[in-house]
């Protein structure tokens, strides 16, 4: 069985960052579940902070630097992508959106994606569903049903009798995501050559000029 490739994209800006912390926890939960199913997993975490300047330059020049191109290629080639952003001004951060603005709109079609966000208070938790989920719906990615929001307070509390705590949400998200990744990976055939030429006769025929 081939090794599954997971890429986690963290848009956290500080170091250490709770966004990165959440990304790592989601990776861990997914990896654990896939290991149970005897999948070998290779994980890479991309910190967008290190690419922030390259991302801005790509907007100005129209092409990515070598490092940014590699990062984009890793994300689009992954069997599953875990994305975590801090909430800035009521939505995903500009850096997070800018990175995905540079990904070809069809490159994540069908790719399983696990959504995560962090913020100062739980009052922003719907950002997962009003910002992140539509973004990845546009990209036609397969988002895991459970997305995880971690407010500052979540790192110091368990659940209560009405709500599950952060660890439970992470475990559930990891399980769902792992199932999705395994299902999609098993169905993936040999990759098609995206650069295949459409013969000119076909191009003319499409215009009924043959």
């Amino acid at each position, binding site marked *: 069985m081939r090794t599954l490739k997971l890429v986690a994209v963290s848009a956290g800006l500080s170091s250490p960052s709770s966004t990165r912390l959440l990304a790592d926890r989601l990776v861990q939960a997914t990896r654990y579940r896939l290991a149970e199913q005897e999948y070998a997993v290779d994980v890479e975490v991309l910190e967008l902070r290190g690419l922030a300047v390259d991302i801005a*330059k790509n907007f100005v*020049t129209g092409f990515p630097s070598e490092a940014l191109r590699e990062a984009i290629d890793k994300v689009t080639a992954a069997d599953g992508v875990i994305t975590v952003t801090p909430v800035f001004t009521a939505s995903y951060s500009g850096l997070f959106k800018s990175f995905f603005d540079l990904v070809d709109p069809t490159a994540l079609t069908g790719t399983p994606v696990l959504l995560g966000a962090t913020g100062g208070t739980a009052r922003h938790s719907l950002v997962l569903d009003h910002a992140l989920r539509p973004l990845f719906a546009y990209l036609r990615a397969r988002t895991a049903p459970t997305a995880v929001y971690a407010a500052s307070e979540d790192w110091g509390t368990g659940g209560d009798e009405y709500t599950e705590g952060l660890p439970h949400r992470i475990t559930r998200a990891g399980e769902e995501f792992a199932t999705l990744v395994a299902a999609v990976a098993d169905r993936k055939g040999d990759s098609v050559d995206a*650069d295949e*030429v*459409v013969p*000119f006769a076909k191009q003319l025929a499409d*215009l009924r*000029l043959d």
Partner: protein
Amino acid sequence: MQFGIFTVGDVTADPTTGRTPSEHERIKNTVAIALKAEEVGLDVFATGEHHNPPFVPSSPTTLLGHIAARTENLVLSTSTTLITTNDPVKIAEDYATLQHLADGRVDLMMGRGNTGPVYPWFGQDIRQGIPLAIENYALLHKLWREDVVDWEGKFRSALQGFTSTPRPLDGVPPFVWHGSIRSPEIAEQAAYYGDGFFANHIFWPKQHTEKMVRLYRQRYAHYGHGTPEQAIVGLGGQVFVRKNSQDAVREFRPHFDNAPVYGHGPSLEEFSSQTPLTVGSPQEVIERTLSFREYVGDYQRQLFLVDHAGLPLKTVLEQLDILGEEVVPVLRKEFANLRPADVPATAPLHPAVTAKKEA
């Protein structure tokens, strides 16, 4: 091999003085630049086509017709002619007329343009960019080769018994290049017809050029026009040259830093390493240009962009002097030594041009 210049025709403020030339000045300067290109022994002058400010070249054959009347040897070309939004019938008529006036010193390059609103301004839909390029060129190709054309397509009104006049000079249509940065369909189109393929090769990393040229060469051979090595390839390039490398960098930097295309982004040094931009001494420009051959093979035409980013006319004319005196003569010799005998030295020239050369 042919060497020349291509212009975008932008009206851009000189960042060192804040002065913006008028449209009138820019058009007259463009003519002066073309005349200088001939004077210093370059082979080709090509103009872009744009239909919005800050660009002036909306009427390429008017400009090229004027230059034709004032030059003897310069090949007049385009970079590019909008095959998507121009009526192919009008292209056939305009460029055939230009060909007569210039005694055959004409070829042209098809492109799709990069300004979204131009499509609706000319009644077209940008989502049909590739189909428009394919259908319109199929018609243009026919109009120049068949005296009486019956035609029905998707994009323009049908033609019954139509003859495009004047007929191409001596019955030989202008040679056509197809320009594209990264659309394989266009490389395929150029290969199908046995036309030339021109890679923009400015502002973009060389990987695009390498990939597209490789595809074009393979498909050129597939369609039986010759070996992959014999396919007709042209490249753009962007240079700023002074006797001393440091002077070139110091003088060009403010223009680079404020240029409309890449300004306020990467540094001159980063952009020079990521794209074919070369700012330096004649020797540096020679070495960099020769290195293009390593990833596209032996090619037939090299056009340099020298007149943008608000460079004043005087500087541009000095650039042409240096290119003509110190850079191009060396490149001609070096490229000729490297090129195998069975690879064409240039794109096909009109018989009238060849005859004049031999006379």
